[in-house]
C-alpha cells in the first residue's frame, strides 16, 4: 500500500515538474501562507499574556501538534476532496479500472510535494514550544502518539468528506467546512470555546483527541471543563473508530457511484 502510494505520488511530482513556473510559485506561496497562522497567534500575545489561562508557549504547543498532523494530512490525503471533480466528469472510471485502491489513487491525485513547507513550519513551531516549555521526558512520549492519532482523525474526516461527494456531487464546499474547519478549530486551546461546542467536538466529532485531551496530559494541566483523567488517553480509540466509519462510508460511496453517460 505504501509502495503504491509512493509510486503514484512520485508520478504526480514528475508530472507537476512539467509546469515549472507554477511549481515554483506554489512552493513559495506555501511557505508564506504557512507563516500567517503563527503570526496571528503572536499578534494575540502581544496584547495579552494568557489566552483562556494558557501561556503563549502552551498555545504554540497545541498549535504545533495539531498543525503537524493537519499539514501532513494536507500533503498526503487532502487530494481526496478533488473526488467531486472526478465523479462529476466521470474520470473516476479510469481509477476504477486499475488494480489499485481508489482511496490511494484519489489521495495521490495531483500530489504536491511543495506542501511539505507547511509540515516543516509546523514542526518548527512545535520544536520551539517543546523546548521553551521544558516539558518532562516522562510525558513527551505522548507527542508522537497524538500526532499519529491526529493524522488518522483528520484523514478519516477527509475520507468521510470524500465519500459524501458520491451523494452530494455538487457540494465540495460542505466537505471543506469539515476538513479545513477542523484544522482551524484545533489550532487553539478548546478552553476559548463554549462548553457546548467542546462537548460536540469531543463526543460527536472527536476533534478533542487530536491535541486538546492528550495535550493537557503533556502540559500537565487539568481540564477546565472537568473531564476525567482517563479521557487524555482515548486518542487511539477515537482515531480507530472514526477510521473504521470512514472506511465503510468510502466503500458505500463507491457502490453508489453512477459514472457518466458516454
Amino acid at each position, binding site marked *: 500500500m505504501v509502495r*503504491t502510494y509512493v*509510486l*503514484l505520488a512520485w*508520478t504526480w511530482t*514528475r*508530472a*507537476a515538474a*512539467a509546469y515549472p513556473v507554477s511549481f515554483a510559485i506554489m512552493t513559495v506561496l506555501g511557505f508564506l501562507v504557512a507563516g500567517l497562522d503563527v503570526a496571528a497567534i503572536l499578534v494575540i500575545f502581544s496584547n495579552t499574556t494568557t489566552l483562556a489561562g494558557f501561556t503563549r508557549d502552551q498555545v504554540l504547543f497545541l498549535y504545533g501538534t495539531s498543525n503537524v498532523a493537519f499539514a501532513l494530512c494536507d500533503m498526503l490525503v487532502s487530494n481526496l476532496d478533488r473526488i467531486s471533480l472526478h465523479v462529476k466528469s*466521470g*474520470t473516476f*472510471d*479510469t481509477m*476504477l*479500472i*486499475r*488494480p*489499485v*485502491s481508489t482511496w490511494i489513487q484519489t489521495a495521490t491525485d495531483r500530489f504536491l510535494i511543495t506542501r511539505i513547507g507547511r509540515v516543516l513550519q509546523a514542526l518548527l513551531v512545535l520544536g520551539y514550544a517543546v523546548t521553551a516549555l521544558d516539558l518532562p521526558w516522562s510525558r513527551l512520549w505522548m507527542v508522537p502518539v497524538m500526532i499519529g492519532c491526529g493524522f488518522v482523525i483528520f484523514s478519516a474526516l477527509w475520507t468521510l468528506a470524500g465519500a459524501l461527494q458520491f451523494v452530494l456531487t455538487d457540494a465540495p464546499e460542505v466537505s471543506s467546512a469539515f476538513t479545513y474547519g477542523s484544522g482551524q478549530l484545533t489550532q487553539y486551546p478548546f478552553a476559548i470555546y463554549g462548553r457546548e461546542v467542546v462537548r460536540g467536538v469531543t463526543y460527536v466529532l472527536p476533534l478533542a483527541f487530536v491535541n486538546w485531551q492528550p495535550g493537557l496530559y503533556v502540559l500537565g494541566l487539568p481540564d477546565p471543563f472537568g473531564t476525567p483523567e482517563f479521557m487524555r488517553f482515548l486518542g487511539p480509540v477515537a482515531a480507530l473508530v472514526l477510521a473504521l466509519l470512514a472506511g465503510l462510508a468510502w466503500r458505500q460511496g463507491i*457502490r453508489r*457511484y*453512477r*459514472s457518466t*453517460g*458516454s
Partner: protein
Amino acid sequence: MIELDRAGRSFKVKRNVVHAVHDLSFTVAPGEFVGYLGPNGAGKSTTIKMLCGILTPTSGTVRVAGLDPSRKRTVVARRIGVVFGQRTTLWWDLPLKDSFELIRLLYKVDRKDFRVRLDELVETLDLSTFMKTPVRQLSLGQRMRGDLTAALLHAPEVLVLDEPTIGLDVVSKNSIRAFLQRVNAERGTTVLLTTHDLGDIERLCKRVMVIDHGRMQFDGTLDELMAGESSLEEVVTRLYTAGAQ
C-alpha cells in the same frame, strides 16, 4: 469468460427509475470475438462498466473470469483490459513511456515479460516515434494506439473495447482492426467490442449481440444476423428502429 445472469442496472433520475440494463443474460466463451451493438443509450456502456467493476449491478449477477467485478474489483482489474475510445486511461501529463512503466508497476508485471510485450506492441502499433511525447500532445490516433498498448501490457485474458475506432481515419482504423484480429488469434484473448462502425463488425466479429433499451434483441453469428441479406447497415437499421417502436 464473461457471464451475465439476469443482470440489471437502474438509475434513479429525479423520481423515476430508469433501467439502463434490464435482465440481461449472456455468456462469452474464452477466445471469442464478440461485437456488441445497439443504438445510443441502449445500455452498452453500462454493461461494459459493470464488467470492469465501475458500476455495481442493481440486480442479477455479473462474472468475469469467474469473479464478481464489483466485489473483487482489483483482482478482476488484473485480468481484464479496458479501452474507452472517448476517454483515455493514460496519465495526461506523462510521456507515453512513463505511463507504460507506471502500468507495469501498478499491475505488478514481471520486468522481462513487460519488456517483451512492450517491444512487440511498440513495433506492431508503430509507437516508437511518440513514446517520449506527453499524452496530452498526442493525436487521437496515436492516443488510441497508446491506450490499446496500455490495456494489453498486463496480458489480460479479456479485452473490452468501448468504441475504439471512434473518430479515427481509414488508415488508423485498419491498423487497429488488423491488430485486434492478431491479438485474438495469436494470444487467444477474449474480445468484446462495442462500436457504431459496422465495418469493425464485418471485419472482426463472428458473433454479434444487439441490445436495445437494456434488453437483448439479437444474439447469434454475423451470418445469422444477415440472414442472406447483403447490407449489414440495413439489417441493423431495421433492428434499431423496430426496438424504438
